[in-house]
Every structure is written in structure tokens, then in C-alpha cells.
């Protein structure tokens, strides 16, 4: 493997990792803070992609479409939390898995009823649809660079919000001790709803980003959901930092595993990585409640 090819593959791995981080961030926040396993996170990802595609078609304006799609995905998440998931904060993980599994089936068929089975087109805005010359021999799709930038911005933003702001303090307080936080005057219910809506918007953002490089179709959320769970668990549930590092790790390992290993082993490599990491550190790389 030549140096420039290595650099390009590394870039691919990092970009894939950043993408995974966008998907996992919301999942790990909801999982860590509300102690809720939300398998329907993948469905929100799918909704983000479908809504963005639909709004682009209707409005013809990308920014407006993206804003609308994000807002609507957040709203869907909010309604889902209020209607169903709120009852499940105190239920077992298993009940949560089951009810959100049911939600996946419902979401998939609703999307199928509305949009049909044919994958939907989601065209990129002109300036982003091509590629740019990075260094000699490395020509890179512009939009992947956009994803890279957005992902890094989101990571930075989340870090600042959770660690350095009052909202972040409320979130952390609500996570570690609910009654205490309420006693301090934090409306935990509201904070949770807000976190859930924000997590949904992040899933939607990831979905519409992914939708522009791969197909927008029913069931697109499930394979991604598995990867997001892998990232969440390797990073340590609830840890934004852990999710970021785990996502990059998975992205790079998967990319190089795919090109360097035989196919069956290449498909297995991230699962082997997860098993090894968990056998070594049973609560992930950055356990939150050490």
C-alpha cells in the first residue's frame, strides 16, 4: 500500500468514524443519561434521511430542507418519548429493547406506506457533488469532507455543552441522581425530553448526511443501529468522549480490515474488536460510573 493510498484510506476510515459518531452520539446520551436503550434510534436516522429528501423535493432549497427535516425528526423523537418511551425509564432494559424493537417495525412499515419500497433519490447540492484534489494522487469526494467537518463540529459542540454549560450540568445532575436534581429545582422531565429530542435530531442529521452518499430506503437504520451500539458500548455507555474515540477506532479498523483481510474475516473484524475490548475492559474504554 503506497503512502498516498494509505493516507486516503485513513481519511476514509476517519470519515466513516465521524459518521458513526454522529449516529452514536444521540444513542449514548439517551442510554447514559436516561438509562434507556432506544433501538428505534436507527428509525430516527431513517426518518431524517427520508424527510430531508422529501423537503428538498418540495422546497428545492437545501438549507430550508435540512432545517425542516431536523426539526421534524426532533419532534418525532419528542412525541415518541412522550407517548411511549417515558413509561419505560423505570422498566428493565429488556422491556425497553422489546418496545423499541416494536417501534422499528412500525416505523419501517409507516415509511413504506408513505414513500413506497423504491429507494428515494437525495441529490447533493452542486458545489458538494464532486471531488477535490487533496494531495497528489488523492482525489476526495467533497461531501465526505463536509461530513468530516460537521462531525467534528458536533463533537466539539457536544463536549462544550455537556461539560461547560449550565444545561450540561443539569443533564449530568439528572443522570446521576434524579431526585437530587429535582430537589435542586431542575425539571428532570423537561431535561430528559429535551435530551431525547436533541438525540433524535442528531440521529436525523446523521441520516440525512448518510442519505446523500448511500441509498435512502426502508430499513436503512438497522445495520447502522448495530454499528452505533457497538460504538456506544466500546466507548462506555453515556460517554461522549468514549463514543468519539470508539467511532474513530471502528471506522479505521473496519476500513483497513475490509481492504486487507479476506471478506468473511473483514466483516467480522469490528465484532472481534468489540469482544476483545469488552473482555479487557468490561465497561468499555471510558466507563462513566467508575
Amino acid at each position, binding site marked *: 500500500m503506497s503512502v498516498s493510498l494509505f493516507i486516503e484510506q485513513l481519511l476514509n476510515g476517519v470519515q466513516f468514524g465521524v459518521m458513526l459518531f454522529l449516529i452514536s452520539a444521540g444513542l449514548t446520551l439517551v*442510554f447514559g443519561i436516561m438509562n434507556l*436503550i432506544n433501538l428505534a434510534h436507527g428509525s430516527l436516522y431513517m426518518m431524517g434521511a427520508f424527510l430531508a429528501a422529501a423537503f428538498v423535493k418540495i422546497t428545492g432549497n437545501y438549507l430550508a430542507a435540512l432545517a425542516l427535516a431536523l426539526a421534524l425528526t426532533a419532534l418525532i423523537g419528542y412525541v415518541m418519548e412522550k407517548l*411511549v418511551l417515558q*413509561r419505560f425509564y423505570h*422498566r428493565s*432494559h*429488556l*422491556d425497553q*429493547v*422489546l*418496545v423499541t*424493537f*416494536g*417501534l*422499528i*417495525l*412500525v416505523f*419501517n*412499515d*409507516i415509511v*413504506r*406506506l408513505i414513500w413506497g419500497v423504491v429507494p428515494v433519490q437525495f441529490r447533493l447540492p452542486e458545489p458538494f457533488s464532486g471531488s477535490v484534489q487533496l494531495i497528489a494522487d488523492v482525489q476526495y469526494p467533497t461531501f465526505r469532507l463536509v461530513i468530516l467537518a460537521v462531525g467534528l463540529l458536533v463533537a466539539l459542540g457536544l463536549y462544550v455543552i455537556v461539560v461547560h454549560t449550565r444545561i450540561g450540568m443539569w443533564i449530568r445532575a439528572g443522570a446521576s441522581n434524579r431526585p437530587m436534581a429535582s430537589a435542586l429545582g431542575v425539571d428532570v422531565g423537561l431535561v430528559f425530553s429535551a435530551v431525547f429530542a436533541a438525540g433524535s435530531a442528531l440521529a436525523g442529521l446523521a441520516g440525512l448526511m448518510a442519505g446523500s452518499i448511500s441509498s435512502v430506503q426502508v430499513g436503512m437504520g438497522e445495520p447502522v443501529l*448495530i454499528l452505533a*451500539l*457497538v460504538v456506544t*458500548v466500546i466507548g462506555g*455507555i453515556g460517554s461522549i468522549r468514549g463514543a468519539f474515540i470508539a467511532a474513530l477506532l471502528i471506522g479505521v479498523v473496519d476500513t483497513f480490515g475490509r481492504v486487507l483481510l*479476506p471478506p*468473511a*474475516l473483514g*466483516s*467480522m473484524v469490528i*465484532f*472481534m474488536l*468489540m*469482544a476483545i475490548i*469488552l*473482555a479487557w475492559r*468490561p*465497561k*468499555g474504554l471510558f466507563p462513566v460510573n467508575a
Partner: protein
Amino acid sequence: MPESSSNSTSVLTALKQAWPAVLVLILLALVPTISQVIDNPFIIRLFTRVVIFAIVAVALNFVLGFGALVSMMHAGLFGIGAYVVAIFAFHEYDSSPLWLIPGTANLAVTIPLAIIVTAFAAALTGAVSLRTSGAYFIMITLAFNQMLYYFFVALQKYGGDDGLQILASLEFAGVNISRRVTFYYIALCVLAVTLVLFSRLINSRFGVILQATAQNERRVIALGISPLRYKLAAFVISGAVTGLAGALWATGQQFVSPSDLSWIRSADFVVMAVLGGMARVWGPVLGAVVIVLLEALLPNYTQFWQLPFGVIVILIVVYLQGGLADLFGRARQPGGGGH
């Protein structure tokens, strides 16, 4: 309240608690007759699937419902059992040895072998997985499931993704058991024995420790019990029975493929156990019956059958916290009752 109830009364009380299970078994036993009356042999095939999945769901529930270990690798273990039978049958048909071991289509050999191999796999993976707990345990078992899946995909000799057709005629120590009704009753007997086995296990000293660990592991340690080996033993027992079910599956289908090991199948088993009711040994049987039948019947009405299916799942989880078994009254952990 006499402390040491005599054996006969304890059998009576057991029967009193387990009457729905007995009822379901009797109904299942009537399936071949019903199928004959309405002249529809497919029903037996469908219920063979129900019964075999029920065995897995019951075995899974032993660690899931009573040990709080959410395993996402039971499809993998199931597949191992199935592949052992299929691979030996393949070598028998091919008349080529597997390394030095000759192939065989004799289930009296391959079924015990399937159980042993699966138990061994469960012991290896369990020893690593049980270092973790909660959601981490779910994910590490999922990882092992995927590894097993891709392992069998990689076995090009045995069909890879295509799966492996069993062409040799399977027999059990010279007896042909492939007749549909015979095979159905064999599977049903295995289910009944499995239910009895796990009922006994749950109430034994071993089972009590397992349940106690699920409720309060810290306290169990403080009492002087190291829970790990009990959890591991439970995982191996559960895996062995799952391997047996896999062997039956291969025998009944005459076909195995990696899709038998898909993680979605693992999730299906969990759904069966939870939906059926984890607090009772026989709860998952109800789950298996309902899930398999819904999956078979709903698509006859609409191609959007996953929508009602999903809604049914959600409603059951929201309103029947103890699963379908709660329709027969609320349950407490069986091992916990000194009567």
C-alpha cells in the same frame, strides 16, 4: 404450614402452578390429529417450528428470566447444533472423512455430539462474556453471534452463504424418524422434558443461587457465594439444550444455512421469551406459539404485516408487564417460594 411437604403434595402444587403449561402441551399434542381432520399436513410442519423454537426460548429464558443474562448469541448456539448434524451428514453422503473422523447420518451419534460441541462453545464464549454485565453483556454476546455467523459464511465447503442441504438420510440408531408426525412428537417430547428439566433446575439449590444473583449479586457475594461459576454453568446448560434444538432443526428441515444464525433470530428468541413471560419456565412456550403463528398468519392478510405485529409487541410490553403468561395470573419467581 408443614415445612417438608411430602413428595406427592409438591407434585400437586407444581401441577397447580403449571396447569397452563400442561394445557398447552396437550393442545400441541393434538396438532397432528387436527391436521388430519382438516386435511392440512402443513400445520404439523408449522408447529414443528413452534416446538423447536419453544425449546430454545425456554432454554434461553433459563439464563434470561432467571439469571438476568440477556444473551444475543442463542441463534449462534442453535446454528452450531444444526451444523454439527448437517456437516456429519454431508461427510456421510460424500463418504469423505472430516479430518480423520468418518461422517455419519446416525442421530444417536450426532445429536449428543451437537450438544457437546455447543456446550463447549457456550463455555468458551460464556467465560469471556460473563466478565461483563447488563447492556455490555448483550453486546458482547451479539459480537460472538456475528463471529459465528461469519464463520459459517466462510465455510465454502459446506455451502457458505448458500447453506447446506442434508442429502444423506438421517436415522436414529437405525430407526427412521423423519416421518413428519413421528418427528413432531419427538420434538414435543424433547420440549416436555426440557420444561421438566428447567423446572427442577430453577427450584434446586443451583437455581436459587442463579435467581438470587439476578436479583442482587452484591448480596450473594456477601453471603459467601462466588456467582461467576453458577452463571457460567447456567449458560452452558442453556447452550447445550439450544444445541439440541438446533440438531432437531437440522433434522426436521434437512437444510441449514448461516441465516439460521443471524442476530435477528437471536433477537426473535429473546422476544419469544419476554413476550411469553420470563417469570415462569413455560412462559416462553406461549411466546414461541404466538410469534411463529403471527409471522405465519399475518402476511396472509396484508403485505404491511409488520405494522400490526409491531403494534401488538408494543401493546403487550406496555400492558402485560409479565408477558402473555400473566393472562394466567401474576407470577413470582418460582424458586423464591418456600410454601
